[in-house]
Structures are given as structure tokens and as C-alpha cells.
């Protein structure tokens, strides 16, 4: 593999809601082309960390550096420009319910590209086909199943061919086969487009199948207790909470 270049660097991050500190002193580096897993037990702040990384919530202290720019200290306009290079798959899909699937994917394209209507429609169809939803262009989000909504959400997240794709629990609520297909799709995206992927999940099969780097947030110590390749962590990590998590409580 090429020498890795840092894509997202997090230093001494503290997450808090008002006076309530959720996690302290989190530092890690996500390299270009990584599939980075944010893992940890329920309620430990995985989703909050994701919110800070995508620009929805500001950190209490600490810095997030994306491509050499301090994400939370640049002007909102600059931050908006960085965010435009993100694609985000939300936990519930978060498709705009008043728009059809094709329009959901078309909206970012309309805003940020010079394509004409016909071209946008073609791109939207292509993205839907990529996630196995050929022919569902004119359905509304309420007319399709939860798993399909998730896939459509992924198609929207990929609309602008983002540099970084964020996934909030991608395989939650999917059957094992669909979850496997999603994992394959994630690997394919990384290999063919060089996208950096950040995945919040606690699905162990996915973690070991796709993860190349990770951080483990420990709800008891209120900080991160391990970081690195999850397969290596399984072999080497000594922390009892990490071991227990990675072995499904067997150790």
C-alpha cells in the first residue's frame, strides 16, 4: 500500500451536552482510503462523534482537521465547502419525504452541478441502480421498505461522488444478506473511487470484514480505550472492555 496520508485528524476532543461530558480526550487519525470504524456500546457517544465529524454539532474542546483545514475554526462558509465533499447515510435514511427517490438524489446535483435536467435524471437512475433500486425512481420514501430506504439514502449520499462517506449504523435493520451486500458495496466504493469511509456500527461481522482502522469508545471510562485495525485489536488488545466487545462477551 502507498504511504498513508492523513485525511481526518482528531485531537484531544471533548464531547459534551451542556455541562454533561460524554467523552473526553479522544485523538485519532483517519487516513485516505481507510474504512474507519467508530465502535462502542450503546449510548457511548458514537453518533455524537459522527455529528461532530460531519459538522452538525460543535465539539466542547479539541480540534478536527480535515485536509489540513481546522474544520471547526474556519468560517461557516468555508465549512460548508468542506461539507459539500461529504456524503452521509443517516440511521433512518433521512430521505426528504416530500420528494421522490429520484428527486432526493437530484437535489444535491441541482444545487452543486451544472448538469441539465435530463443528465441529472440519468445520474439519479445510475445511483439508484448502484444500490439495487432500478425502477424505483418515482416512488416516495413512504412507499418503500425500511431496508430500501436505507439503500436509497446511500444512493443520495453518493450523489456528488463524495471524498468522505459517513455511515450511521448502516446495517442496523437489514437482513444478513443485505448487510453483506452493503459491506461489499462499501469495499467496492473504497477500491474503485478511493473514498474514505467512516462507519459507526456495532455489527461485529461488518467490523471485521471491512474495517481497516477503528476507535473504541468506552462508556465506563468516558474516553477511547483502543484504536487501530479491528482484526489486530482482536489479537493484541489487552483492555477487558474492548476484548469483551470484540468477542461478543465471551472474554
Amino acid at each position, binding site marked *: 500500500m502507498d504511504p498513508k496520508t492523513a485525511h481526518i485528524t482528531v485531537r484531544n476532543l471533548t464531547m459534551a451536552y451542556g455541562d454533561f461530558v460524554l467523552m473526553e480526550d479522544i485523538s485519532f487519525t483517519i487516513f485516505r482510503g481507510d474504512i474507519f470504524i467508530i465502535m462502542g456500546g450503546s449510548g457511548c457517544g458514537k453518533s455524537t462523534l459522527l455529528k461532530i465529524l*460531519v*459538522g*452538525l454539532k460543535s465539539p466542547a474542546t479539541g480540534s478536527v482537521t480535515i485536509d489540513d483545514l481546522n474544520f471547526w475554526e474556519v468560517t461557516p462558509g468555508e465549512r*460548508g*465547502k468542506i*461539507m*459539500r465533499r*461529504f456524503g*452521509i447515510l*443517516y*440511521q*433512518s435514511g*433521512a*430521505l*426528504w*419525504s*416530500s420528494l421522490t427517490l429520484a428527486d432526493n438524489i437530484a*437535489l*444535491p446535483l*441541482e*444545487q*452543486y452541478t451544472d448538469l441539465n435536467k435530463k443528465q441529472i435524471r440519468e445520474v439519479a437512475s445510475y445511483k439508484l441502480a448502484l444500490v439495487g433500486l432500478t425502477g424505483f425512481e418515482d416512488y416516495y420514501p413512504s412507499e418503500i421498505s425500511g431496508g430500501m430506504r436505507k439503500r436509497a439514502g446511500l444512493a*443520495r449520499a453518493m450523489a456528488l461522488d463524495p471524498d468522505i462517506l459517513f455511515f450511521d449504523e448502516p446495517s442496523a435493520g437489514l437482513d444478513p444478506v443485505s448487510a453483506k451486500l452493503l459491506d461489499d458495496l462499501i469495499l467496492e466504493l473504497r477500491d474503485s473511487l478511493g473514498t474514505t469511509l467512516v462507519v459507526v456500527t456495532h455489527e461485529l461481522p461488518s467490523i471485521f470484514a471491512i474495517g481497516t482502522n477503528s476507535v473504541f469508545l468506552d462508556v465506563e471510562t468516558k474516553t477511547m480505550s483502543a484504536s487501530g485495525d479491528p482484526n489486530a485489536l482482536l489479537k493484541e488488545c489487552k483492555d477487558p472492555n474492548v476484548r469483551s466487545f470484540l468477542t461478543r462477551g465471551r472474554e
Partner: protein
Amino acid sequence: MNDSNTHNSTPAQLTARKTADDTLTVFLSGKWTLDQPLPDIIELKKALTADNAVRTLSFDTQTLQEWDSGLLVFLIKARDLASSRNLTQNLNIDLSGLPDGAKRLFQLTTAVPKREGAEKSDTREPFLAKTGGAVINIAGSFKEMLDFIGDASIALLKFMTGRATYRSSDLFLIIQECGVEALAIVTLISVLIGLILAFVGAIQLAMFGAQVYVADLVAIAMLREMGAMMTGIIMAGRTGAAFAAQLGTMQVNEEIDALKTLGLQPMEFLVLPRMLALILMMPLLCIYSDLMGVLGGAVVGIGAFDITPVQYFEQTRGSVHLSHFLLGVVKSIIFGIVIALAGCQRGMNCGRSATAVGYAATSAVVTAIVIIIALDGLFAVITNILGV
């Protein structure tokens, strides 16, 4: 889980008897299920407090016929009782006499120890603290409202200079929803208000034989006050609530987050078209409501008080000035802004649950109606001072 003869089952019974020097055995018999009365723990409590020598609590379930969660609840109560007893030594609980399933379920309840501070405390706040908290809350929500009005003004300014990003198809859809689709209800309410005004007025005026002036009364009241106010109240209940519910649900579904992370301002993308639609449609609806109200008045005047149509028309034309009409229209535009702001603000600041969406919709309607009536009163005072 249950024994053989469930047909002639006996009610649950509990007896506690010492079976050894330091052992108290609880004999459980009959049917220990939730669908029938279960014995009180007090029996056990008495037996325990009566004898301080007891060190072990054991169970005998040989005559137990059937059991479900009822038995487990009793066991947990017995455990709490045992651990709360004032003793120098702890009381051991011997589970060996219990049915296997009940034993395992009971052990499961103690598998995860109680987390420190997990239980919500119900300490009562002192009155002053409560009042202070309420004041701080009100100040906070006032600041939120001001913030929102500021952001909305900036969005409106951006629109005027042509720099706002929104979908024009959204704008037309909302205009249709809060324009054409509101016509039916505005017609109904306005005609009825006209009718009522005319009846109330005409009966009083007829005492002086001046019933023809009912036309003046209805026309001025509708144009100056009732047209704008009634459309305002209708639209607050209809459209303001819809705005709050729509935006609130979008908040719950993370749809607004999805807009933000795409670099789109919800203020321009969602709030601006709603505000524009109401600013455009409210004056039109108000004029329509004025007309319908006057028509309603005419029905009563002509039908019940022997005024000829020509007479009624002439009387109305003579009484109405442009200033009456404009005052109503200006007010309706302001009411439109109030409804849009209240609806959108409540929706955008909605919490992330179904109850929060309901609360947002209710609060949007109440806020809008209160502000509309208060503003209308303020207008009445100002126009009176100015002599308009």
C-alpha cells in the same frame, strides 16, 4: 412451567415457618399467577421481624401449581425485604426449593447490578428555584424567537437580492396549499361572520328605524377588523399547525440534518418559501374574506330587514373608504408573517419525538393566535390615536 391439575386450582397461599434454628422456610402453594389476587408480603415481613435468629430464607414449592411473573415479583420483594432488614449479618436466600425456570429468571434479575444514580430522583424543587427556572426558560425561548426572526429576516433579504437557494416548485406547492385550498373554509367562516354582524347590528339599529346603516356596520367591521383577523385565525389553525408539524417531523426524521450537511440552509430552503407563500396569499384571502363578509351581511339586510339590493350596495359604497380597506390588507400581511414565523420556529426547534411534534403544532397555533389578537388590539389603539 405449570403442574398437571390446573382445572381445580387453588388460590395462591403463603405460609412462613421455621424449619431449622436459623432457617425460615416460605411455603408457596396454589396458583401464583398475575390474573388473580396474590398474598401480601406482610406475612413474611412479620415472620422475619419476629425472629432475629433467622439467617437463611428458603422456599418450599411442592404444592405450587402454576406460576408466572407474579411469583417473580414476590421473590424480588422478598429479596429487597431481606436486604433491608436491620441485621448485623446479611440474610442468605436459598433458591434451591424454587422451580428451575423461576430460579433462572430470578438470577437474571440480579445479573446486572443496579447502576449508581440510574434511578430518577423525585426531589422537590423549592418554589423560588422553580420560579427562577421558569423565568430563565422564558428568557431563553424569547431569545430563541428573536434569533429566529433575525435569521428569517436575513433569508428574506437574501431572497430580495436574489441570492437565496430554494426550490421554486416547493414555493408553488405551498402557495397552493395555503391559498386556493383554504378558500372553502374562508368562505364559510366569512359569510357566517357577516351574517352574525348584520343580525346583531340590525336588531339594535331597527330600534331607531336606522336598519339601513347595517350595511355600513358590516362593511367597516369586515374591512377594518374581521376580514384580516378571521383569515389570520383560520390560517393559524390550518397552515401554521401544518408548518410546525411538517418541519417538526422533518426534524425527527433527521431530514433537516441531511439538508444542513449538504450545505443548504433550512432557513432559506424550508422557512423562506413558507413565509413568502403566506405573505403573498394572506392579503388575497383577506380581500376575499372582506367580500364574502359583506355578502353575508347583504343576505341578512336584504332578506330580513327589507333593504333593497341597490340601497344596500349604495350604502356600502358610501361608507367604505380606501383607508379601511388598506388597513385590513396591511394587517393581514403582518398576520401572515406572524403565522409563518410561529409555525416554522416551533417546527424547527421541535424535539426529536412524536410528542414533541404534537406540542410544536399546538404551540404554533396558540402563539400565532395570541399574537394576532394582541397586535389587532394594538392596531386599534394606534389607528384611533392617528385618526385613521
